[in-house]
């Protein structure tokens, strides 16, 4: 075997076929090439361009001035025309908070749902999945507008809240924080449930039995026997909910009344009304870095604790 490394013409057996190493490489390149090309053209190059643009300047009337400086970075951390202010950082922090809370809520609601779906027969499962996925076929804005109607002052959720004294007379459930989280969780939940369900289906219940045999209590069994097995699914769920909710701003604008800005609004404002593409690119790059870093942290911390 060692010899083959030095002589590429040596034939090897691969999937029952006689072939050479270089031929296998060529075949592999043919298969992976389009995918890699796609990623380079549509992901890597635009991201690199964004990061270069982030160091350019806005010219008058919204053009781009290619004199590179760290002005946009300084502006982002708070050096504005009005003196130092932490507004941009507050916005970033607020977006991270909303995204994190949404993700935690989605996992918390998604886990029991995944188990419940997995406990049904095959045809029933398909039906339940359809129930989860069908709302996603409607446009996000329309779904959010439906919540606006439903949470209005004259509808039954408001009457119920009023009955329990949670809501004063004439007040309504929206706009507000509660409405924002309802909207966020309801739109992100399908993305959290799917990977969780897959990992519930693959669970090795033998481990749970073993843990019971060894007199572990229900909490310990769940923690070491079930949750540790589901970690890949949970990580996938977190990625699928955290990253999109970081950039989401439609829901918070519609259901929160647009009182406060999120990072998504700020970026949209730069590419829209402010016509300051370089600063928008800087904000976008920071958002990308933030989501990558938070995923790495999560994977490190989460991985260590559970396994």
């Amino acid at each position, binding site marked *: 075997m060692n010899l083959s490394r030095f002589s590429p013409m040596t034939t090897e057996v691969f999937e029952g076929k006689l072939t050479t190493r270089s031929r296998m490489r060529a075949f592999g390149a*043919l298969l992976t090439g389009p995918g890699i090309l796609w990623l380079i053209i549509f992901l890597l190059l635009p991201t690199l361009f964004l990061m270069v643009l982030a160091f350019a300047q*806005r010219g*008058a*009337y*919204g*053009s781009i001035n290619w004199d590179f400086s760290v002005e946009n970075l300084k*502006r982002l951390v708070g050096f*504005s*025309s*009005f003196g130092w*202010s932490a*507004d*941009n950082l*507050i*916005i970033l922090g607020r977006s991270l908070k909303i995204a994190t809370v949404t993700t935690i809520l989605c996992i918390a609601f998604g886990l029991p749902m995944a188990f419940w779906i997995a406990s049904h027969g095959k045809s029933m499962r398909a039906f339940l999945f359809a129930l989860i996925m069908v709302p996603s076929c409607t446009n996000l804005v329309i779904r959010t507008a439906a919540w606006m109607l439903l949470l*209005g*002052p004259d509808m039954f959720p408001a009457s119920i809240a009023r009955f329990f004294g949670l809501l004063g007379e004439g007040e*309504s459930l929206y*706009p507000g924080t509660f409405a924002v989280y309802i909207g966020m969780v309801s739109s992100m939940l399908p993305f959290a449930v799917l990977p969780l369900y897959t990992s519930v289906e693959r669970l090795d219940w033998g481990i749970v039995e073993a843990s019971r045999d060894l007199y572990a209590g229900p909490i310990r069994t769940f923690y070491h026997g079930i949750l540790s097995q589901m970690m890949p699914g949970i990580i996938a769920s977190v990625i699928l909910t955290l990253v999109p909710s970081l950039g989401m701003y439609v829901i918070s604008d519609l259901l*929160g*009344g*647009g*009182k*406060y*800005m999120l990072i998504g*609004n*700020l970026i949209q*404002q*730069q*590419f*829209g*009304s*402010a*016509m*300051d593409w370089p600063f928008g690119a800087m904000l976008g790059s920071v958002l990308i870095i933030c989501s990558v870093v938070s995923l790495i942290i999560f994977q490190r911390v989460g991985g260590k604790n559970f396994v």
Partner: protein
Amino acid sequence: MKKILLALTLLATFALFVGCNDEQKSAEKSKKVTVMIYSEYIDPEMLTEFELKTGFKLQLELYEAQEEMISKLQASGTSQYDVIIASDVVIQQMVHLNLIGKIDTNKIPNRTNIADQFRNPSYDPTNDYTIPYLWGTTGILYRDSTVDPMKVSYSMLFDAKQTKGNFSLLEESRSMLSMALQAKGYDANSVNQKEINEAVEYILQAKKDPHFLGFDGSVGGKDKVLSKMDWAAIVFNGEAMAAINEDPELRFAIPTEGSFMWVDAMTLSSKAPNVEGAYAFMNYILEAKTGAQLAKYINYATPNKASLEVIDAEFKNNRVINPSEEEIRRMVFLKDPGEAARLFDEAWTIVKTR
């Protein structure tokens, strides 16, 4: 291997098919006029009428927001459009970005119909680039028939002691800040940092009022007042008119401290393929009858004084659509802030963060 090759060939043929679609289009070009316009901003009947009258086919390219329109023009060029409808605030910017060209006014005989207040406007002092299409005002829509619209002040929204119910402010940085500047007694077009800072503080103070429901676009504000979630909101007069038609208890006021009016103007694309057709369209819109039809259909005021002669008295005397002389004196046009754009942007970020 053969299968893969086959699939690739199929893909390539498909791509070829998609690629050669535009060929036929160029043949018709000379006969059609392409107008870039807000969605639902023209009476569909006028499309057929224009074709009958001039022989040019009218094609509309729709947009929803000014920024969207400008970035579309910057990205794909102006050679696909003949006429571009743009708001007064962005005219100077579009001139600087070379998106629009000079209009030869001699080719538009009906230009004499333009009302005096829209000649030599601040956004186009030499009348070189624009022909007004429709115009409107911005004010406060509120639910209280006992308050005289002529005496409404911004304190109705900004003074916590005077707010009688929930209210929303306008979700548009430049407009909202300019209104706050006026409420503070400054020029709406001020680029003075100290004055803008005071305007920011003024809005932030209103944000602390428990009656403050949030920032909304003109349509959103109108909907909230109509559904009684809001007691008052800042809206454009066209929306106010629609709301008042539905609920006669509502009133619309131009605040005494002043507000801004806006004009949507027709401009000539810098690389218009059919310049003659573009002039024909502008001339057609400036006809007395067309101007009246357009204003009635869209519910905004016409800058066409000949149209005011033929329009029915009820529409002409409607104070929401056609404000009084005194109210017009209170209002200004907003200018492009140019270098100060960043100041407004940062001010707005502060408003939306704290």
